[in-house]
């Protein structure tokens, strides 16, 4: 187990270097330091000298390979550096400020989604083949087919405008944040519901057709026990895998959700940085995104081994 973890972490080093390299190359293919300097310098028509000074100040005048090595080394040591923007604030400071709104919404929607979707999937699986199942599954397909934007705008319109139950957008710290988080969480849960319920239902039905279910019935085990004990524990394995994989995405925040609800989270930070070609920030956020994804996959494998005794991490 420990050996497995060490090996996985070692494997992740070349992946992270690759991510840094791709980000670096893509950045130079689409922008040049001069353009960023022009955008960020306050003077309307900066002189060549001003641009040169800016490039020197931000380290863009060094040879490209040196730039790559320096920035990558910094990222690996989690020295994320300063933003390329005028204010030049520390990236780490912004992350410390912005992680909580993303995290709050992520945890709430993750918890709510898995509880609700799993319960609904159990219900439709229990009533498999009845009208409830047929209409439920059809509704799922319909919900899957509607785009995310409809849920966001529709939610803002119905809850924020018509019913005035929640703020349309924005965020406040502290307990007040729950009021603002409510609508984004509802939208996140509902938009993912169709696909998840359908998928979980398939996991359940796959398990219900297994031979061990017939054995349990032959033992005289009651139907609820068959479903909630025998089937659910086996179906938990694929449910867990698909769910844990979603954690990194949740941590970075849904970019779309945060920009539409104007939530000062990490997703919003990344979008702003991309729009203003703030390479220092994009670089750092992409790196962290990759790091969280890798950790998420390792967690998936560990949770797999915990639920399914047939899986051994070696």
């Amino acid at each position: 187990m420990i050996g497995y973890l060490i090996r996985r972490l070692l494997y992740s080093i070349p992946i992270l270097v690759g991510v840094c390299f791709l980000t670096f190359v893509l950045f130079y293919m689409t922008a040049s330091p001069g353009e960023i300097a022009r955008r960020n310098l306050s003077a309307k028509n900066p002189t060549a000298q001003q641009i040169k000074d800016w490039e020197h100040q931000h380290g863009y005048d060094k040879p490209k390979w040196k730039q790559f090595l320096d920035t990558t080394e910094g990222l690996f040591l989690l020295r994320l550096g300063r933003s390329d923007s005028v204010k030049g604030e520390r990236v780490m400071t912004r992350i410390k400020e912005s992680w909580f709104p993303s995290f709050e919404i992520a945890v709430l929607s993750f918890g709510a989604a898995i509880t609700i979707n799993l319960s609904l999937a159990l219900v439709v699986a229990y009533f498999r083949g009845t009208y409830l199942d047929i209409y439920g599954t059809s509704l799922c397909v319909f919900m899957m087919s509607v785009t995310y934007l409809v849920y966001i705008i529709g939610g803002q319109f119905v809850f924020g405008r018509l019913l005035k139950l929640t703020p349309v957008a924005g965020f406040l710290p502290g307990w007040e944040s729950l009021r603002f988080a409510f609508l984004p969480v509802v939208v996140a849960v509902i938009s993912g519901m169709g696909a998840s319920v359908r998928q979980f239902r398939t996991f359940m039905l796959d398990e219900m057709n297994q031979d061990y279910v017939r054995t349990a019935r032959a033992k005289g085990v009651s139907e609820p026990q068959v479903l909630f004990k025998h089937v659910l524990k086996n179906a938990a394995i694929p449910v867990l895998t698909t769910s844990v994989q979603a954690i990194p995405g949740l941590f970075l925040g849904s970019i779309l959700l945060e920009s539409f609800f104007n939530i000062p989270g990490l997703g919003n930070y990344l979008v702003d940085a991309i729009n203003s070609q703030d390479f220092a920030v994009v670089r750092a956020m992409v790196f962290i995104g990759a790091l969280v994804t890798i950790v998420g996959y390792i967690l998936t494998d560990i949770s797999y081994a915990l639920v399914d005794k047939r899986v051994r991490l070696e």
Partner: protein
Amino acid sequence: MNPPLLQVNGLKTYFNTPAGLSKAVDGVSFSLQPGETMAIVGESGSGKSITALSIMQLVPEPAGYIESGTISFDGQDLLDLTWEQMRSIRGRQISMIFQEPMTSLNPVFTIGYQIREAMLTHDKFKGESATSRARSLLERVGMPSPNKVLRQYPHELSGGMRQRVMIAIALANEPRLLLADEPTTALDVTIQAQILTLLRDLQRDTGMSMLLITHDLGIVSQVADKVAVMYAGQIVEQSPTNTLLSNPLHPYTQGLIASLPSRSRRGQELYTLEGVVPPPTRWPAGCRFHDRCSKRLQICDSQMPLATKYDDTRSVSCHLYPAQEMAGNQERLK
């Protein structure tokens, strides 16, 4: 004679399939005395497994259903019972073991849990006594180091060992009837013999009745007191085991026995029954065996033969043995 423990009468179990109505079991009748072992023999698709599942009322729903018939167990028709009443009989009065030991145990629970569950479900043994009984059951079915096995998961055991665990689960509540649906088909030949011997010994020790479903006539002679031969959803011949093997009546049984390899026919080519069992959605008219039969008569493709008593212990469904001729036979025997 004692009243039979199990009496199946005119059982019909049908399935709605995309290809049409499948009459998997079509009018099966037999009875089983307490402590008796009966084998149901037949090719794949003859309906023998569905017969056993019908007794348990575990026919895959909603496609499958019991159309008509009675299944009287200890004087009570199981088909009259509610699901809840039936549940209290399953695993307690009637147990079943299956063909697929590799997949029949739940992979995420320990062996100990799965054996105890069978007892706790029926409140017959509780707590510590269930655990110690689980241990002694594992010992009884010949598991080495039962204490270790109790904590193990199914994937840590071989197929033969898993089938022993299945047998331990089936015996947990001292059932009066054990349905064994091809219990040795998926196992190695050496393991097959061990499991069969185990089943036979257990049956003798506990005095339970056993219904053994198999396609292997070799197994039958070792274990069963009597045999029912199934073909195309019907029983074509019933007979005590020894009589059936030495003097089969129905041409299908004769064919089955002739296709067994034996010492007396060493060096000769093995007999084969031509053709296959027809699909259960389209049973042939008349005798269902007529197009594979070497002794076919004129009447065979139009009229279905009825099960008729051949003598005190045997019955057969074949036009070669019409009722009155049998009476003549009886005369001549006298």
